[in-house]
């Protein structure tokens, strides 16, 4: 029965949207539309997240994301961004190896300098 399915999908909705069929049906339809759209958006969002993570990881070694990817492409390393972000998080030594390969393939990044300590940090 469609009403039963609608209420099953309407679990956790706010107010009358989980109990009254007329309102629940509308809200459930909207929810399903959002999920359709967001299955596509999720792919975009995740890729952006991976790129941010790779960027953070490579900047620790003095290379920015653009040059890093350029170097990898030049060396024909076909790891995708998902895997690269995972490696940058959990396998720092392997990631450093990748960064070094990329730096050799495409130089043009200034070396990492230790951040200047100001104030009380100078005492440390």
């Amino acid at each position, binding site marked *: 029965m469609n009403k039963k399915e609608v209420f099953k999908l309407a679990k956790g909705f706010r107010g009358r949207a989980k109990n009254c069929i007329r309102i629940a049906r509308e809200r459930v339809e909207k929810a399903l*539309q959002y999920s*359709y759209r967001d299955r596509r958006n999720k*792919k975009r969002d995740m890729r952006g997240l991976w790129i941010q993570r790779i960027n953070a990881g490579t900047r620790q070694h003095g290379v920015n994301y653009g040059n890093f990817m350029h170097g990898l492409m030049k060396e024909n390393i076909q790891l995708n961004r998902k*895997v690269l972000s995972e490696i940058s998080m*959990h*396998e720092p030594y392997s990631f450093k190896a990748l960064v070094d390969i990329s730096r050799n393939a495409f130089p043009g990044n200034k070396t990492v300098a230790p951040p200047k300590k100001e104030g009380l940090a100078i005492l440390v």
Partner: protein
Amino acid sequence: MASLSLCSSLSTTSTLSQNHKSTVRAFKTNLNFLSSSNSSIRLASPKQPFFVPKLSQTEAPSTLAESEIEPTTEIQPTVEIAEAEPKREEVFAVVMVGSRQYIVFPGRFIYTQRLKDANVNDKITLNKVLLVGTKTSTYIGKPIVPNATVHAVVEEQALDKKVIVFKYKKKKNYRRNIGHRQPITRIRITSITGYQDSPAVTLP
């Protein structure tokens, strides 16, 4: 020591919906005691944090933290707990299956797109290995690591969880309600071999 966290590694941009079905096979959590007791040894020889894939929907690491570091000297009595676990070499590989890349460990399973003509309990070799990492060195492939293979066994050919595809246009009386179950295959990784004689990068 950096806290280890499980991270998602099972899908690329194409089908993230499959992640929730996979479960992490937790390695013996008593290894946490091992790492804390041998912390003095740890400082002498820092090992890279072992990589544990998390199989869930988002990239945010879950709260489970696992430590797979084996002690360098095997004389402490607490080692008996670790010895109970079957000898598993600490290696991981990045393999490409079904146009998606996965980070793979021996002994764990992954969900891939349906492999046709593969029956249950079939041995499968995956040849497209992009990177192999061990505790001491990393073999980076350009694009693949030569002669490296990942052996796996097909566990199950199943359908993914149902996704409701609901299409709706407002004010035009257009509604389509379609259910979709993607055929997938669960394969369990048995071993990673053949990467020895490739150019390697030794890690500190």
